[in-house]
C-alpha cells in the first residue's frame, strides 16, 4: 500500500490516463479499507458476546484508529513543497470531496449538532442550513477561481491580488484568529472522547490524540492529511448512520430514517401536547419554581456586606432552578417555528420578530463563514484542475449532506424514544445507560425525583446536548461495540478537523510570513522544515489552552465563523469579481469588517464583556436584537462597503494585477495579441 500515494509523483501536469489509473487504485485501496473496518467491528462484536470487557473495547478502538491514522501519515511522508502544501495537486474530485467532508465536520457537527437539534427543535436547523448552504457560495464565488490562481494558501491570494504585504499580513492574522480558536475546541473534543473511550484522564487523552494528529501532519503535510481525512470520513459516516438506521427500524421498521421521521415528528408533537397538560409535569415545574423562589428569598435576605461568592452561588442556584421550572424541560415544542406569536400582544410580536431575525442572521453568518474559512478553501488547491475544483465542491457537499440530513432525524427519533419509553419509568427501573452517563458527568445527564412520586417525569431529566449522539446506541439497545464505534467516529471528526486547521496555521506562518515576507530566498527544504517545527509549536500551544478547559469554548467556535466571514469573504469575492478593487480598499475593508464584528461581540457577549471591562448595559449595545454570535451580519456588509468606497477613491490596481484577475476568471486563457 505504501506505493499507492506515490503514483505519478513529481507534481507536474498529469495525463487523463494517469488520473484514471490513480483513481482506480484509490477506489481499490479504500474499498478494502472499508471492508476491513466493517470486519473489525464484527470481530469486536463477536468478542463482546464472548465476554470481552467494555473498557478493553474502548481501548482497542482508540489505539487501532490512532495507529491507523499515524500509519497513513508515515506512508505519505514528504518534504517536497508541492506535496507538503497541496498534496501534489492531484487529489481526484471525489476523494477531495470526502477529505473536505472530514475536514469540515468537526466534533461539533458529529457529536454536538444532533443534540442541539434535540434541545432547540426548528431553531437548531439554522446550523443545518448554514453549514451546508455555505458551499453554494464556495462553488459559485471561490473554489474554481482560487484553484486557477493555484497558490498554496489564502493569504497568498490576498498578497498577489492586492499587491503587497499589508493585505497578506492581515490575512495571516485573520487566518490564525479563526483557526486557533477552532483547533482548541477540536483538541478539547479529542480529550473528552478519548477519556470516555478509554477511561484515561482528560489531559492524557489530549496528548494521545495530539500524537495521532501530529504524526500525520508533521510527516506528510497536506498529502498525509488528505489521505487520512478520507479514511476518517469513512469511519465517521458509518459510525453516524448505523445507530440511526437501527433506531428507525426499531421504531418504524423502515430502515431509511430520513424518509420516515416526519411521522415520528407528528407523534412527538402529539406527545408534547400530552406532556404539557400532564398534572405530574406541572407538579415538577411547581417544585422547581418553589426552589427558585426559596433561593431568591435567601438572596434578598443576605446582608449588604455578605461575601460576593455567597451571592453568586445563590444567584446561580436561583437561575438554574428557574431554567428548569419551564414546560417540556425548557425545550420549545420540536416543530414550533420561531418563538413568540406574530398575532399576539406587543411582547409576543417582539419575541417572534427577534427570534426570526436571529434565526436568519445566524444562517447568514454560518454560510458566509463557511465560504471563508481558510482550512476549507485551501482544500480546493489540491485538485488537478479548475474542472475538478467545481466537481469537488459538489462531492464535498454531497458527503456532508449525508450526515447533515440524518442529524435532524436522529434528534426526532431520540426524542420519540425519550418521551415514550423513558419518561414515565419508575425510578428503580431506569435504563442502565442513564446511570452510566450520570456517573461520567452529572452536568451531561442528571435525574432527580423532585416531586417524590417515584416516577420519572420529563421535567426531572436534565440532559446536555453533547451526549445525545454518544448515547444513541445505548438508547436504542445496541451492543457496546457500536457505542465504541460512535465515539471513534467523533474522534475521527475532531482529529481530521484539527489536522486541517493546524496545517493552515503553520502554513500561514511558514509560507506567508517567513517565506514570502521575511526571507524570499529560503530554500524549499528549509521552508518545509520551518513549517513542521511551527506545526509542533502551534499544536502544543493549542493543547495547552485546551487543557485549561476554557469556559466559553462553544462561543469561540461560533465566533470564528463571524470573524472569517467579515475578514475574508468581501476581499476574496471582490478580488475576483471586481477588477477595480485595490490594495487600500481591501486592507481597510478587512480591518473594518473584523473591527466592527469584534466590537459588537466585545460589547454584547458576557464573557468578552468581562475581559474588556465593558459595564454599560447590554441592551444599549444590542443592535436590532441581534445575538453576539451573529456579529458577522454587520461585518460582512461593512467590509463590502468599505472596499468599494475606498477603492473608488484611490488609484486603480496596476495593469499586471488586472491581468491576474482575467487570468483567474478563465480556466485557460489563450489571449490574442493586442492590436
Amino acid at each position: 500500500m505504501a506505493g499507492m500515494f506515490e503514483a505519478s509523483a513529481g507534481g507536474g501536469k498529469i495525463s487523463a490516463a494517469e488520473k484514471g489509473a490513480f483513481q482506480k487504485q484509490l477506489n481499490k485501496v479504500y474499498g478494502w479499507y472499508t471492508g476491513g473496518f466493517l470486519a473489525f467491528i464484527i470481530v469486536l462484536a463477536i468478542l463482546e458476546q464472548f465476554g470481552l470487557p467494555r473498557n478493553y473495547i474502548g481501548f482497542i478502538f482508540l489505539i487501532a484508529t490512532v495507529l491507523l491514522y499515524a500509519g497513513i501519515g508515515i506512508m505519505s511522508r514528504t518534504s517536497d513543497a508541492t506535496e507538503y502544501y497541496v498534496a501534489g495537486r492531484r487529489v481526484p474530485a471525489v476523494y477531495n470531496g470526502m477529505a473536505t467532508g472530514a475536514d469540515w465536520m468537526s466534533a461539533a457537527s458529529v457529536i454536538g449538532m444532533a443534540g442541539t437539534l434535540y434541545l432547540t427543535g426548528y431553531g437548531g436547523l439554522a446550523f443545518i442550513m448554514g453549514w451546508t448552504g455555505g458551499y453554494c457560495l464556495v462553488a459559485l464565488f471561490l473554489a474554481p477561481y482560487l484553484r486557477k490562481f493555484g497558490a498554496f494558501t489564502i493569504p497568498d491570494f490576498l498578497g498577489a491580488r492586492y499587491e503587497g504585504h499589508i493585505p497578506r499580513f492581515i490575512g495571516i492574522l485573520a487566518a490564525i484568529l479563526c483557526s486557533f480558536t477552532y483547533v482548541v475546541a477540536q483538541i478539547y473534543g479529542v480529550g473528552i472522547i478519548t477519556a470516555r473511550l478509554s477511561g484515561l484522564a482528560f489531559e492524557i487523552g489530549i496528548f494521545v490524540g495530539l500524537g495521532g494528529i501530529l504524526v500525520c501532519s508533521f510527516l506528510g503535510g497536506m498529502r498525509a492529511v488528505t489521505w487520512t481525512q478520507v479514511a476518517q470520513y469513512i469511519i465517521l459516516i458509518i459510525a453516524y448512520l448505523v445507530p440511526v438506521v437501527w433506531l428507525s427500524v426499531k421504531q418504524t421498521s423502515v430502515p431509511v430514517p430520513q424518509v420516515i421521521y416526519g411521522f415520528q415528528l407528528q407523534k412527538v408533537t402529539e406527545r408534547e401536547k400530552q406532556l404539557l397538560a400532564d398534572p405530574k409535569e406541572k407538579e415538577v415545574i411547581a417544585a422547581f419554581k418553589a426552589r427558585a423562589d426559596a433561593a431568591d428569598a435567601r438572596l434578598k435576605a443576605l446582608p449588604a456586606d455578605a461575601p460576593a461568592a455567597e451571592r453568586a452561588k445563590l444567584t446561580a442556584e436561583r437561575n438554574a432552578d428557574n431554567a428548569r421550572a419551564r414546560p417540556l424541560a425548557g425545550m420549545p415544542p420540536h416543530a414550533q417555528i420561531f418563538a413568540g406569536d406574530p398575532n399576539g400582544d406587543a411582547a409576543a410580536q417582539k419575541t417572534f420578530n427577534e427570534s426570526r431575525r436571529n434565526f436568519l442572521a445566524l444562517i447568514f453568518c454560518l454560510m458566509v463563514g463557511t465560504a471563508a474559512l481558510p482550512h476549507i478553501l485551501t482544500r480546493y488547491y489540491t485538485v488537478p484542475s479548475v474542472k475538478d475544483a467545481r466537481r469537488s465542491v459538489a462531492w464535498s457537499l454531497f458527503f456532508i449532506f449525508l450526515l447533515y440530513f440524518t442529524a435532524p432525524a436522529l434528534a426526532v427519533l431520540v426524542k420519540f424514544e425519550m418521551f415514550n419509553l423513558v419518561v414515565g419509568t419508575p425510578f428503580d427501573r431506569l435504563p442502565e445507560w442513564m446511570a452510566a452517563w450520570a456517573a461520567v458527568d452529572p452536568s451531561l445527564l442528571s435525574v432527580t425525583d423532585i416531586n417524590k412520586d417515584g416516577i420519572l417525569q420529563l421535567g426531572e431529566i436534565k440532559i446536555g446536548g453533547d451526549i445525545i449522539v454518544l448515547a444513541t446506541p445505548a438508547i436504542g439497545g445496541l451492543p457496546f461495540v457500536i457505542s465504541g464505534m460512535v465515539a471513534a467516529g467523533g474522534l475521527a471528526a475532531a482529529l481530521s478537523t484539527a489536522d486541517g486547521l493546524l496545517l493552515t496555521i503553520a502554513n500561514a506562518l511558514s509560507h506567508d510570513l517567513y517565506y514570502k515576507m521575511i526571507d524570499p530566498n529560503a530554500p524549499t527544504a528549509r521552508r518545509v522544515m520551518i513549517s513542521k517545527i511551527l506545526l509542533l509549536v502551534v499544536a502544543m500551544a493549542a493543547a495547552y489552552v485546551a487543557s485549561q478547559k476554557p469556559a466559553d469554548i462553544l462561543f469561540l467556535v461560533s465566533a470564528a465563523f463571524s470573524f472569517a466571514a467579515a475578514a475574508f469573504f468581501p476581499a476574496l469575492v471582490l478580488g475576483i469579481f471586481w477588477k477595480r478593487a485595490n490594495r487600500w480598499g481591501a486592507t481597510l475593508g478587512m480591518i473594518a469588517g473584523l473591527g466592527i464584528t469584534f466590537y459588537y461581540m466585545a460589547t454584547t457577549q458576557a464573557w468578552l464583556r468581562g475581559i474588556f471591562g465593558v459595564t454599560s448595559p447590554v441592551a444599549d449595545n444590542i443592535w436590532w436584537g441581534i445575538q453576539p454570535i451573529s456579529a458577522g451580519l454587520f461585518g460582512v456588509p461593512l467590509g463590502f462597503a468599505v472596499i468599494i468606497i475606498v477603492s473608488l477613491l484611490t488609484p486603480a490596481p496596476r495593469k499586471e494585477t488586472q491581468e491576474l484577475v482575467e487570468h483567474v476568471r478563465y480556466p485557460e486563457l489563450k489571449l490574442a495579441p493586442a492590436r
Partner: protein
Amino acid sequence: MELTETHRDYWRKNLRLTAILLAIWFVVTFVIGYYARDLNFTFFGWPFSFWVGAQGALVIYCLIIWYYARAMNKLDEEHGVAEGD
C-alpha cells in the same frame, strides 16, 4: 494582450448563471425562512418549512452546485477556455 469577444461572452454567461443560481439559493434559504411560520402545512408528515430546513434546502444546495459544475465545464469547452490535459 486583449480579451476576444468569445471571452467576454463566456464571462457574461458565467455571471448570469451565477446570479440565477444565487437567486435560487436566496429564495430557498431566506425567503422561505422568513415566511416559515406561514408555510406550516403538512408535507409527508413534516410541517413544510421544517422539512425545507432539514432536507429540502439541502437537496437544492446540492443540485445548485452540481448544475453549476456541469454547466460551467460545458461552457469552458464551448468557448475554448477548457484546460488541456
